[in-house]
Each structure stands twice: as C-alpha cells, then as structure tokens.
C-alpha cells in the first residue's frame, strides 16, 4: 500500500484546508501522522507547468482512470510504461487505465518527447499524481465508510474495509465529481518498491493489439468526413525560388479542389489521393525554379568540408596540466568521421489539418505538440490558442523527422479550404530529401600513454553542425514550408546545449579517469545540408570515436581492450556492465583474431548521466570482398530501476540494430545541389538476413532512479562493430560506414 494518511476528516477542501494550516492556499495535501511520509526533495519537473491534478488524472464512473501525459508514443512503448506507473500508484489494473497522450487541447505540457527522458519526467509526475489521487480517493472512502483510512485496502480500484464493505473509485467520484480537481502535490509518498505489482514486470505493450489487428491506430488511418488529400511540390534543390507553375491547368485536372501557391510554396488538394498525386506530378512538371545560391560540399571529402565551415568553438572541458614530456612514452593520434544519416522512418511523414471558423486543428506525429503549435501559429499569423495540435501515432520516430514540417504543410493546404479536413502525405522522396538529417561529424583525438600504460594526456576535438533545429527554438521559425513563403522566415541559429546533455558534444567528455584532458567542440555555423536531431544527437559520433580510440590506445599499450577500459574506469556501475557484457560474451583477454573472426567491445554511459551500456560484437570478415557479416551482439545494460523489463530489452535490441546499421551501411548521398539518397535503394539499411542474434543482459539496480533506455545502445553498438572489424582486419577504417569497398581500400 502507498502512503496512507490517518486523518479521516470530512473531505471537503475547506475542512482539509482548515486542518492543514499553511497549505490552505494551494489545497495541497500533506499526509499527516502514522506511517505516511512526506516526500522530500524537489517535485517532478513536469509539475511546474501543469499544476492541476485533474490535468493528469481523471477517474470516471466506470472505475477507469484516464491518464494524461504530455509525452508521445513514438513506437518506443512509453505509454505502456507510463500506464504501469500510474496504475501501480492507484492500485488499478492495467486494463483500468486509458492513456491520453500529447495534445495541446487535453494533455499537460511536457515539452518534447526526446532524449530518453519520458520515464524520468512524465513517469515521476504520474507517480506523484497517482499517489496523490489514490490518497484522496482512499480518504474519501474512509469518510463514506466511517472508518480510519489506514484500515482500508485497494485492489483494482475497489477500496475495501476490514469488515468487508467496499467502494469503487468510480462510486467515490460519482459522489464527489470535483474530488481530483485541485492543485497537484508531490508530497504523498509513492508506494515502496517492495509493494510493486506492475512496475518492474514485463507487460504486454498496450498499443500492440490494435496495431496487429489493424484497428486503425495510426494517423494514416484517420478518415474525417469530407476529407480531401494533399500533396506538396518541393523545389529541385533547397533554397530554389519558384518562378512559374501552371496552376490553371492543374486546377482543371480531375478531382483537384485547390492549388495552393504562396511565393515558393506549392501544393495541391484533390478529392482522391491518386488525383492529388497526379496533380502534384503535373504541377511539378510545369514548375520553373531558380536554383538557390547554396552549393553542397563534396560528399567524398566530408572531413575536409567540415573543417572548412564557419564555426563557433568552445572548450567544453579542460582539466589538469599537460604532463611532463618524459612521462609520455607513446603518443597516439587518430581522426574519425561519420557521414550524414537519415532517420529512415518506414512511414514518410503525414498530417491531417482542419481549418474552420478561424480555428486550426492539426493531427500530427510530432515529438512536441506545444512547440509545434507555437511555430505554426507564428507562421500563420494566428493566436496560439486558435491552434490545436494533437499527437497521433505514426511510424517509428527516432528524432526530428519531417513530422512538424508535414503538419505545417497540411495547415497551409487546409487554410485554403475552410471546413474541409486535408490529409497530407509526404512521399518517400520528400522524407529522405527534405526532412532534417543527422549531421556528419569529425572527431580528432590525441592521447599520451605512460610507461605504466595509463592515459596521461587526452585531447579531443569534434566538428559538427547543430543537432537541434526543432520548432520552438529561439531565433528562427523551424518549419520547412515557412522558409518558402517569402516572408523571411529562417531556421534558428545553432544552439549551444550545456553539458552533460550537449548538442554535437553530447558524450564528448569521456567518463574514463583522465587526469589531463582538453575537449573542444567546434559547432559549425554554416549549414549547407539541413540538419536536426536523430537518436543520441552527437552521442553516437562521440561514443564511436572515443571507444574506437580506447581500443587503439589499448593496442598501443599492449593491453586487452576490456582490461584497459577497466583500468581507467572508476564508476562501479560502469565496471559492472563492462564486466557483465565481457562475461556473457565469453571474452578472452588478449585473444588474437585468425583474420576472419573479429570481436570488439565498447562502453558508454549515455549523456554521461543516464543508462550504462557495454556491447560486445562478433563478426565474420571476408578479406577478399571486404564484407563484414555480423555473428552476434551481446550487451549489458543498467537502466536503474526497471519499469518494464521486456520494454527495456526491446529498446536496447532496437538501438543495437540501428547502431550496427548506421556503422555498416548508412550514408546520405548528395551532389552539389541536393540530396540524392531519395529511396531505399539509395539509402540501404540492415535487413533480416543481416541482423545477428542479440542478447541483452540487464544489471538490475532496483534502488536507483529509472533511466531511459531508448538511445543508450546505439553508439556502443557502432563502436563495438568497428573495433571487431579492426580486430579481424588488422587495420582500422575510421570513417563510417564500413562498406566493403571502403574496407577493401584500406587493406
């Protein structure tokens, strides 16, 4: 049982207030007496903007709780984890909670769903709100049943007294509909872990049955009355200006209800989807554009290009003094890079918009309904309160893809047809060529080893464009369509995000014991390709480089890669995952490769404050072709307290597959004018015959705070793969991806 107040006074706000003195002003509930304990420490951060309990939880007559979260289901299973937390605190079954997620009309404002922070933020808010709601419901039941609240037990939302009488939550709120209408308080003690029945258990994802049964859970499945279909026509290259388009002829095509042209923004709406596609094609064929001034860098000389861009340099860490020259017996230097990467979501972005009576409603798979509303309102010249953005699930999202841009495109088209909802579907080419992509990165490292094989000097510099260009960021308006309206809108300037979160410099500071270190972040301010946030931001590039470099240092020191890391790794939780992964993989210290089989290891603590991960990857290497075949990946992870073990495993598996795929195959291609990776043939990702068996071992830390699992494995997977290849090949390819032709070139 959770916190149980002994006070059982009549449950009116006034009586509560009178009994609780100073707390009157906010109607906060402070449990008094008995074993109820007041929670110490700061309240959940999501409470700052969302102070009302009824904004988080509503209980209905049928004994079902509706749980409101500002976080969005992106395919990561977050709604299930949050449902577990809320149901646990309220002593409800998982089938007795209904989740309402990100919506400017109905949900709390919890900003963006990103950075593996949803369990930490929304989870802690719902834990506190759930405990408070249960406390209120039990206190009300105690009043009705005329017993002491501490004698009551709750199961599946039914409050039972010692003498066998019971009262369901639904009945309690029927008697007092305003019971949960009050300020939220974080002061009711949540359930102790030992009493958890749902949290910590693998439960079936609440969204999967609807998905496998085709029950229409996706945004793409929404069909509104009188809905029309939209397509946009993008320029041949970014920044191009539209001179002419044969709007008149296209308007006369079958089914076309509107051609929308605003300066260089061009779109079409038709009664039927195939008519919209045909009209967009005709419009595109008729359009004449003047190319913008932009020239893209040479895709085959990316490191050089990155170094040539304008930039803003920051020393993000400098400690210790350079060692006496004599103490360094060996210097090791290396330069690593990764190319631009695509999100590669299986479903191109989609949105539905409806404009009527001066109000705009947009259904979107955005990661941030409130910031998107803000930028859209600004671009459309509407007050924000006249715009609603409602999150609806779509294909998996791994960061800032085209969702927000598609939402704005849909809004522009719907505004031209008041009263008719418009469904806007981006094409595969739109998504690849026009959504923000992950920046290419260059990482240079130089370190000195002592005679004892310790790192005594560590210098690291990284070059990257910004990984943050989302709606809501200051200094710009971050919606693709807005830049073509001829109103001077532009993307926000690059953002410095302080450590430990960081931008391109996320995870750039190693957690190894390095008495002397100097780390420089070259934030590139010139952005020829539109970049944005992809899973881990700079964490992937930095973990890849640091963990490859650790292997190179171990080799130079004549040490085993696992032992070398352990010798520089003071944190016991870090050591535990590294040891666990090595043990599970059957790591043999100092084992040489036969030139065919390779094995690599990598470790990281995501964002330096979140999940700990170590990954061991085994490969088969074919020297003749340069081809790498994945044999096995083994990982150990420590996510603190676990909400849903299978959910953690699933997220970690997914992160490993993505990390392996990025390292092995992925690279956005482009010529001097535009992106040329515009379909799956031009941007191959890993497939069923390439994905190896994956084992995830969880190091259980039930007493540590829960941490997000979504991103932590990606960087270590890429690094472990690169280390395995270097192990087998006897030479290192430092520029990703590790495609056969590139591997062969270094042999």
């Amino acid at each position, binding site marked *: 049982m959770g916190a149980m107040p002994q006070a059982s006074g009549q449950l009116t706000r006034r009586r509560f207030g009178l009994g609780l003195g100073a707390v009157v002003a906010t109607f906060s509930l402070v449990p008094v007496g008995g074993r109820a304990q007041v929670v110490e420490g700061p309240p959940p951060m999501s409470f700052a903007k969302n102070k009302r309990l009824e904004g988080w939880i509503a209980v209905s007559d049928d004994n079902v709780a509706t749980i409101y979260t500002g976080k969005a289901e992106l*395919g990561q299973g977050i709604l299930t984890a949050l449902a577990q937390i809320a149901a646990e605190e309220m002593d409800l079954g998982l089938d007795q909670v209904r989740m309402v997620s990100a919506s400017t009309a109905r949900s709390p404002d919890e900003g963006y769903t990103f950075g593996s922070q949803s369990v930490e933020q929304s989870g802690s808010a719902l834990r506190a709100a759930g405990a408070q709601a249960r406390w209120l419901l039990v206190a009300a039941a105690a009043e009705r049943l005329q017993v002491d609240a501490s004698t009551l037990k709750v199961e599946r939302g039914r409050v039972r007294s010692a003498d066998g009488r019971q009262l369901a939550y639904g009945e309690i709120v029927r008697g007092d509909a305003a019971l949960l209408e009050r300020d939220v308080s974080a002061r009711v003690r949540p359930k102790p872990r030992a009493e958890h029945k749902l949290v910590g258990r693998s439960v079936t*994802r609440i969204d999967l049955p609807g998905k*496998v049964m085709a029950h229409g859970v996706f945004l793409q499945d929404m069909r509104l009355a009188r809905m029309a*279909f939209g397509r946009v026509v993008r320029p041949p290259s970014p920044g191009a200006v539209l001179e002419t388009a044969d709007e008149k002829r296209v308007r006369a095509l*079958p089914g076309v209800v509107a051609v929308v042209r605003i300066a260089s923004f061009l779109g079409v709406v038709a009664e*039927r989807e*195939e008519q919209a596609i045909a009209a967009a094609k005709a419009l595109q064929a008729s359009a004449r554009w003047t190319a913008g001034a932009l020239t893209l860098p040479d895709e085959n000389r990316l490191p050089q290009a990155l170094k040539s861009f304008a930039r803003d340099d920051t020393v993000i860490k400098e400690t210790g003094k350079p060692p006496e020259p004599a103490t360094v017996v060996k210097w090791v230097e290396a330069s690593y890079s990764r190319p631009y990467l695509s999100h590669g*979501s299986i479903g191109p972005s989609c949105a539905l918009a409806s404009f009527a009576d001066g109000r705009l409603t947009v259904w979107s798979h955005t990661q941030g309904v409130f910031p998107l509303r803000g930028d859209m309102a600004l671009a459309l010249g509407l007050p924000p309160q006249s715009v609603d953005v409602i999150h609806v699930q779509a*294909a998996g999202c791994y960061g800032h893809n085209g969702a927000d841009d598609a939402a704005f495109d849909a809004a522009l088209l719907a505004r031209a047809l008041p009263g008719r909802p418009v469904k806007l579907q981006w094409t595969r080419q739109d998504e690849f060529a026009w959504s923000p992509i992950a920046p290419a990165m260059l990482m240079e490292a130089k370190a000195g080893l002592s005679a004892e094989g310790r790192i005594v000097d560590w210098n690291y510099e990284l070059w990257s464009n910004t990984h943050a260009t989302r709606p809501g960021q200051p200094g710009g308006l971050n919606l693709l369509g807005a830049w073509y309206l001829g109103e001077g809108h532009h993307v926000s300037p690059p953002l410095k995000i302080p450590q430990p979160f960081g931008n391109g410099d996320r995870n750039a500071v190693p957690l190894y014991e390095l008495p002397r270190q100097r780390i420089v972040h070259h934030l590139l301010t010139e952005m020829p390709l539109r970049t944005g946030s992809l899973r881990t931001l700079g964490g992937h590039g930095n973990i890849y480089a640091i963990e490859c470099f650790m292997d190179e240092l171990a080799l130079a020191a004549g040490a085993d890669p696992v032992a070398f890391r352990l010798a520089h790794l003071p944190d016991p939780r870090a050591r535990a995952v590294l040891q666990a992964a090595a043990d599970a993989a059957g790591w043999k210290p100092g084992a040489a490769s036969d030139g065919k089989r390779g094995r690599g290891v990598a470790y990281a603590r995501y964002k330096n404050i979140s999940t700990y991960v170590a990954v061991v990857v085994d490969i088969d290497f074919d020297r003749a072709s340069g081809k790498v075949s994945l044999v096995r990946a083994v990982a150990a992870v420590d996510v603190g307290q676990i909400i849903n073990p299978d959910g953690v495993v699933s997220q970690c598996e997914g992160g490993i597959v993505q990390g392996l795929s990025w390292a092995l195959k992925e690279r956005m291609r482009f010529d001097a004018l535009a992106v040329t990776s515009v379909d799956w043939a031009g941007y191959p990702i890993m497939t069923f015959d390439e994905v190896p068996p994956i084992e995830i071992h969880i190091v259980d830390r039930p007493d540590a705070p829960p941490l997000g699992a979504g991103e932590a494995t990606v960087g270590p997977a890429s690094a472990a793969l690169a280390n395995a290849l270097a192990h087998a090949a006897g030479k290192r390819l430092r520029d990703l991806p590790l495609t056969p032709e590139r591997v062969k070139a270094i042999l």
Partner: protein
Amino acid sequence: MTTTFQLRVNGRPAPVTCEPDTPLLYVLRNDLALNGPQFGCGLGQCGACTVLVDGKPVRSCVIPVRAVGKAAVVTLDGLAKDGAPHPLQRAFVEAQAAQCGYCTNGMIMTAKALLDRDKAPSEAAIRQALSGHLCRCGSHNRIVQAVRRAAAGPA
C-alpha cells in the same frame, strides 16, 4: 477513364470506382477504409503495403487496381476469424514483435503466405521470406520469433 471494378476483398465483394491505374493500396485504404496495408514508399521497396492476392504477397502500392481482376485480396484487417486473432497476430503480441508497428502489416502478410505453403519453415527460410521487408525499429529477431511461434501453433 473512371471505371468500376468488382473486387473481392477479405471474402466480400467490394465494388470500387476509380481510374484503372490507381494503385490498389489507395483503393484499399481510402475507398474500403482498411487499415492493414500502409504507405511506406510507393515504390515496392519496403513491404509495408503488402496484401495477399490469391494467396501471394503483393506490394499493393505498385499494383494497379485493373490488374487485380477477380483475384481474392486478403489484408491484415481480414485475418481474424469471428473476432479471434489469427495465430500470427497472437504470436506478434506474445513475442512483442513490434515497436512502432508500422511495418507489422507486411511482416504478418508475408509470413502468412509463407506458413500457408510451409507449415514449419526454418529460421533461415523465415529470414529469407522477410528479407525484402524493412523494419527500422530493430524488431527483426522478435519478428522471426513470432513467426516461429505461430508456426509451432498453440503451446
């Protein structure tokens, strides 16, 4: 020239009126309000739009409606019998074989075609059958497990 086609979808007659070269996907989704097949690429590359046409997996985004004729079209929406999920649907939930679930339609439909001709496929055969389907969340191994589980039948 707009034409009326007498399709047979999920065991029922389904007359639709559209241009003959309209991809089957749009007819299924927009005219028949089916949610199974999803738009992923429109190029026949990813498999999210897969449906069965006379038992064979077909990419509905690239097959024009005129080419369907009288063939029996089955979509994910039509797999359940009297409300009871198909063994593959059950297995996908039991194995938690999806994250976003957007590619799931294609995985299940192609797996159904495989299991209909081979009741106990090897893991390699399953991977081979699914190798033309893309998944971005990294659920591949769970999907293979789900197909194996469905093939093994109820425990």
